């Protein structure tokens, strides 16, 4: 586990985007997160993987400040301008695409920035469409545009491609990678897909039963080659950390 600096050293040395110390979360009698400590450096792309019920979504909701109902302790240091990309695109059905993208943005050039983002996600000209008119993949691209249009220094993504079909998901990986390279937010991506984590992230954190059990740096060049021997090594290491032994 990455010990990292103490909270009072936050900002010293290498710039940290996120610092979490002794984080615990529970619901009623049930402890869901226990003794979570980790840091994310500025500009890192971290994937957080774990089985269902491992606490990864709870951790994400704690970071996004969406867990009023939980009993909590610990310290979270996190940038103010963070964006959340949900598993469902979560577009307001009664607002058109551009109004969804600029939701909550108050500056004068918000619309122009929104239109530019819409172009970047490959949906130029669809600004007046209703969300219901778009396919699942297109809706998720609008959600991505909404997340990035606010220029976040941290992007938190909760299995954003989990509901998409396999081909659309591959396209979304490329799109996300390209946009991250341009906008350079720090990224924390929650996923249960080991390959997705290894294709996108430069660090993978594995959770199990509310604790961090592995923290692996992925030192492979982009774009990632799934046939690279180190890719396969990492894949095997992650799968065994998740308790999966493959013979196929």
């Amino acid at each position: 586990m990455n010990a990292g600096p103490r909270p009072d050293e936050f900002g010293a040395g290498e710039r940290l985007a996120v610092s979490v110390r002794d984080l615990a979360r529970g619901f009623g009698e049930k402890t869901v997160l226990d003794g979570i400590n980790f840091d994310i450096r500025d500009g890192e792309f971290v994937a957080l993987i774990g089985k269902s019920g491992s606490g990864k979504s709870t951790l994400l909701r704690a970071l996004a400040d969406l867990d009023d109902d939980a009993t909590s302790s610990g310290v979270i240091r996190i940038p103010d301008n963070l964006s959340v990309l949900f598993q469902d695109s979560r577009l307001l059905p009664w607002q058109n695409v551009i109004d969804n993208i600029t939701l909550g943005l108050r500056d004068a050039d918000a619309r122009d920035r929104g239109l530019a983002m819409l172009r970047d996600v490959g949906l130029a000209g669809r600004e007046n469409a209703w969300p219901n008119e778009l396919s699942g993949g297109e809706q998720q691209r609008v959600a991505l545009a909404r997340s990035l249009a606010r220029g976040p220094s941290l992007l938190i993504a909760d299995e954003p491609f989990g509901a998409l079909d396999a081909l659309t998901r591959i396209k979304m990986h490329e799109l996300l990678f390209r946009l991250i390279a341009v906008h350079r937010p720090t990224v924390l991506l929650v996923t249960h897909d080991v390959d997705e984590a290894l294709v996108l992230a430069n660090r993978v954190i594995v959770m199990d039963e509310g604790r961090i059990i592995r923290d692996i740096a992925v030192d492979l060049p982009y774009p990632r080659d799934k046939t690279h021997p180190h890719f396969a090594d990492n894949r095997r290491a992650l799968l065994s950390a998740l308790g999966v032994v493959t013979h196929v």
Partner: protein
Amino acid sequence: MTYEADAYSLGLAGREHRAADAPVGAVHATLCRKSRFMPGRLPRGGVLFGPIALLVIWQLASLIGILPEKLLAAPTTAVATFYDMIVEGTLAPHFFASATRAYLGLGIGVALGIALALASGLSRVGEASIDALVQIKRAVPSLALIPLAILWLGIGETMKIAIITTSVLVPVYINTHAGLRGIDLRYVELARTVGLSYREFITRVALPGALPGFFTGLRLAVTTCWTALVVLEQINTTEGVGYLMSRARDYGQTDVIVVGLAIYAVLGLTSDLTVRYFERRALSYRRVLGA
């Protein structure tokens, strides 16, 4: 009435293919809606079959004398009476008197229903003070309030409009309140993560989310506002469709009673269609087909 005209005609096309013994593949290709278990879609105007059949049977029964005039006037007699009343100018004052009462009550009731629903749906104090009261009012028929209303407000127009207002308020409140309370929590989370202000949350999430419920309430309200009139217009008035009908009962004029009933039916249907028209425009985002 047939606002799903496209779907109707699609269903029709499907059945025509079936009737023409088209190959199985072609039937599937034409959005066939008829299955062994579910009835097919009605063709355009098909819902009018029942009312038209009733009119025909009614007219025939009158013609051959099964249905005597003193029990129920024939449709054609009622149409003739209606025409005479229009030409003599005796219908218009009654109609406008009723419409004024109904729509004044509707306007006030809808405004009050929305205001109460917002207060109750968006604040705990509001919910604690308002919701149970409206639910109690819902259990009490508006007409049962007439004796009290007469003691408090007299027998004039104020009392009549107040009674209509209370009966209209309930469906608007119940459905708008349910719409507000039923807003998807996922959208509330979204509003938090994109940093909406409370005001922005109300205008961009809560109100649009409650709009479908409000329209359901409004559709009930536009017909409800007329129902109380028949009774109310027997109290201290000489104008109104309800008055016209109760006077016709005293004189045994079944044709005038039928005219009054027809006015209620037509008004109810047009009001409902008008609301549905605005509902479709306001909720147009729901009608688009998924890609």
